[in-house]
């Protein structure tokens, strides 16, 4: 069995009118199937309101499907006995770093999760140290989070999740509030965790450049999986992506335009280096 499997997952919530009467149901997730192996780097793309974040909250049992099932590491996410095991193995990082900081000092914040799990003080210290090293924040362990840049705060948030020793990290638009340097820092850290520690990464984003490194991309639209495939496959379908209110990375777009203009360039170019090589060949 794969690490994370979603089978025909549907999630509906009740919409209420002004006076609280039931106004109807809104289907936020509509028959989603997913199949993610341990160690995969997955990107989920989609416009605002397409259900990405709702779907992400299903992965660690914060939300339960209305219909269908999700298995994480062999456990059904609706199984109340397994809920803490699931949350330990699937960590979540959210968009706004300010709203997920619990400690007033970096170190305390990272220690929050292991403290909740009930780990011994000495082991907590060890885990905090290791987690901060993994995201290269060990020099700031005594700092107040408010003194850190956005990228640094987000890396602390990642360390806070790492201290649970998770098998998978779900990042819900982790770079939306960061500047380019902060984005690079976070993405670099995430890729390193995937490469070195073999942690499964599920990155939710609408920044196309970040999805380029994924093993597989799922594109969501109106609660459904509209497209799925490798970045190369997905980004060669420019018109379809634009229908989903998304674009392709600028490099891919330029390559596409050049090919249309008669230059012999392969489809699905993803990085600057690839394009330069293809042009200079």
């Amino acid at each position, binding site marked *: 069995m794969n690490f994370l499997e979603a089978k025909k997952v549907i999630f509906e919530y009740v919409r209420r009118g002004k006076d609280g009467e039931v106004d109807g149901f809104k289907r936020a997730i509509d028959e989603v199937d997913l199949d993610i192996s341990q160690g995969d780097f997955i990107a989920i793309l989609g416009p605002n309101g397409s259900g990405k974040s709702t779907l992400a909250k299903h992965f660690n049992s914060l939300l339960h499907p209305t219909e269908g099932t999700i298995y994480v590491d062999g456990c059904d996410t609706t199984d109340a006995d397994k809920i803490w095991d699931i*949350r330990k193995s699937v960590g979540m990082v959210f968009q706004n770093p300010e*709203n997920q900081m*619990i*400690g007033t000092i970096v170190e305390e914040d990272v220690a929050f999760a292991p*403290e909740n799990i009930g780990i011994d003080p000495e082991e*907590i210290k060890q885990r905090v140290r290791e987690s901060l090293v993994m995201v290269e924040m060990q020099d700031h362990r005594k700092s107040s989070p408010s003194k850190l840049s956005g990228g640094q705060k987000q890396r602390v948030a990642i360390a806070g999740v790492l201290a*649970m020793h998770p098998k998978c990290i779900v990042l819900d638009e982790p770079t939306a509030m960061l500047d380019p340097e902060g984005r690079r820092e976070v993405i670099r850290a995430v890729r390193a965790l995937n490469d070195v520690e073999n942690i499964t990464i599920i990155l939710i984003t609408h920044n196309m450049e970040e999805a380029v490194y994924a093993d597989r991309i799922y594109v969501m639209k109106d609660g459904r999986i509209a497209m799925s495939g490798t970045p190369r496959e997905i980004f060669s379908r420019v018109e379809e992506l634009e229908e989903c209110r998304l674009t392709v990375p600028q490099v891919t777009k330029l390559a596409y335009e050049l090919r249309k203009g008669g230059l012999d360039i392969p489809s699905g170019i993803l990085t600057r280096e690839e394009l330069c090589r293809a042009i200079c060949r």
Partner: protein
Amino acid sequence: MIRDITLGQYYPTDSVLHRLDPRVKLCGTLIYVISLFLFQTFTGYIVATVFLVSMIALSHVPVKFIFRGLKAILFILVFTAVLNTFLTPGRELVSFWKITITIEGVRLAAFMILRLVYLIIGSSLMTLTTTPSNLTDGLEKSLGWLKVFRVPVHEIAMMMSIALTFIPVLLEETDRIIKAQQARGADFESGNIIRRVKSLVPILVPLFISAFRRANDLAIAMESRCYHGGDGRTKMRPLAYGFRDIMAYVVLVLYLAVVIVVGIMF
């Protein structure tokens, strides 16, 4: 205006007070507050002043910073002073029109103001030298016995800690909202009371919405980091008393003794 509130803010520096166990500081603050209410004479206040001034000196926190907290309660101070001065019966000092100011009134007003000022400075000093998490750790530990009476000590401590962490965030947010509405020409300074209260709506509505959004985000983040109350929770740095803390308790006991002696003798 909003930035003047120092209560609940930590001033990061290194001093003996910063390094003390939070339980000592809580206990000390409590004794100090009690002493303020015991003293009825100027001699008593001299003792409290000596104690307070030496603590401020030990804390390494700039005096300007400590006094900033008083600006926020200026209104209450003036109000107390006026009430006490005019409404206390006793020997007449000055009299004009229908108002009489009494010697007792002036005396009481002076004490009340001193008491409030000392109270605020003393408690700000504690929060300025103790990180919020340390403070709540201390509270949780020293009030642990209340659990017997089904008081949710851990939950209260956690709520306090979160509230303290989010005070600066929400203050900043308030500042931002005020600026944004001012950019739309909102005026908070002129007009009568009713107009001024009404002018707060454009600030309060977005502020509440934002606070709820943040609270919701935080709750989800805590849950996904396996938070499930105080049961089975451990601490990275469990509180433990050291030599310094025992010495501090000795100082406190001495202070208490002086307070009692002064209270009885003078």
